[in-house]
């Protein structure tokens, strides 16, 4: 199956700092999504971004499909940004998503 690697595995930030999370994948994909899992376990869809750049408030994401990576930018981090960030990819002609192991973010006040 496809390999999905996320880095860094753990990240500690001071409130107000910026960060970049990375997702590398080993094959061409039809779909890429970023999710945030909050400390209560809820998974929230952040971006659907198979290619290009999108922004939503303090968050933005860029996927370079030809180079098989995606980046999630968090600016002016807040304590509510804490949790685990996952990327998930879907291969062409397969209705199956493969998740990375996640980046655990802890934003300290």
């Amino acid at each position: 199956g496809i390999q999905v690697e996320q880095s860094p595995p753990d990240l500690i930030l001071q409130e107000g700092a910026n960060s970049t999370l990375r997702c590398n994948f080993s094959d061409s994909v039809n779909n890429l999504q970023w999710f945030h899992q909050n400390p209560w376990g809820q998974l929230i869809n952040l971006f659907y971004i198979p290619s290009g750049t999108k922004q939503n408030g303090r968050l933005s994401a860029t996927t370079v499909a030809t180079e098989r990576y995606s980046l999630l930018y968090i600016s002016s981090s807040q304590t509510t940004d804490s949790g685990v960030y996952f990327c998930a990819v879907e291969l062409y002609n397969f209705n199956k998503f493969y998740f990375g192991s996640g980046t655990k973010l802890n934003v300290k006040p």
Partner: protein
Amino acid sequence: DAGITQSPRHKVTETGTPVTLRCHQTENHRYMYWYRQDPGHGLRLIHYSYGVKDTDKGEVSDGYSVSRSKTEDFLLTLESATSSQTSVYFCAISESGQASQQYFGPGTRLTVT
């Protein structure tokens, strides 16, 4: 938020007993998925459905079966639960499968003793 509920939310059961988890959606989405989440593994697909009575295996399907008799309900059954099936189970839905967004339910925490 997408209308997805899971029941039960928590369950403790003994090894060897059958267990059924239910996922219910109000979005009329065609695709439904069952994942398990374990430390160090992220989320892994167990089974998915692409329509009523249409299902297929994911990467960790051994020991699990599924059924979908109505668009809104997707059931996951552990025929004989084992301790290795202790996990958090998430249901997800998407409108059209390929190249569409997935939305997740709140999860079910299952402990097999």
